């Protein structure tokens, strides 16, 4: 993984129209972004389409990204990914056929690891969207509360409350499933 300073250098080059530098940014961020999108959508093709959309939005809006000590580039990209997900659900969720939702184990790079925790994935699926998002960002992507606040456009206190409620709801799901 590149250091933030190296990513900022690539961002600077990409802002000047260097598409090769943008390709390097893709190489660094595509895997964590895909994991996030796929975990939330559970459909490979849709997650791939949205990943493409996210990177094109990033390229198109590069000039509006202003680096600060607080705002890492990846945080800004995850914010775009989260808005893209919300847009996707707003326009298409009602028409999603639940039978089309894929079994994640088919795509896990380590199927044994997936099988060990499949009950957890099943429980997560039953939580409200925002609970799933905060859990993915905090515990799967290992992002900080300030970063998640930026991505989800909430206060840090709001994220802490959301995280607390999400964990509580997940515990209740697991108890119902006799897994806790």
């Amino acid at each position, binding site marked *: 993984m590149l250091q933030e300073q190296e990513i900022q250098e690539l961002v600077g080059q990409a802002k000047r129209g260097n598409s090769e530098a943008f390709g390097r940014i893709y190489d660094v961020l*595509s895997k964590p972004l895909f994991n996030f999108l796929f975990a939330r959508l559970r459909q490979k093709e849709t997650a791939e389409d949205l990943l493409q959309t996210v990177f094109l939005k990033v*390229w198109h809006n590069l000039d509006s990204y202003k680096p600060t000590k607080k705002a890492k580039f990846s945080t800004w990209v995850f914010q775009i990914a989260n808005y893209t997900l919300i847009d996707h659900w707003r326009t298409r969720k009602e028409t999603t056929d639940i039978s089309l939702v894929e079994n994640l184990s088919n795509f896990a790079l380590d199927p044994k690891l997936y099988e060990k925790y499949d009950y957890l994935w099943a429980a997560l699926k039953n939580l409200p969207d925002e609970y799933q998002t905060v859990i993915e960002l905090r515990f799967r992507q290992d992002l900080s509360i300030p970063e998640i606040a930026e991505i989800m456009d909430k206060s840090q206190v709001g994220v802490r409350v959301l995280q607390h409620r999400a964990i509580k709801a997940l515990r209740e799901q697991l108890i119902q499933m006799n897994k806790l």
Partner: protein
Amino acid sequence: MFGFNSKNKKLENLLRESRQDFGFDSENIKARVMMAVNVGIYPKTM
């Protein structure tokens, strides 16, 4: 209270342990992105 927090910590650790990488056609998506970037095509949703 301690018991509740401790159980939450265990669940948080379980979530971290269950972190997964999923397979996708990275090179194909990259090719699609780079082609759109190089010819100036953007998604309709922007």
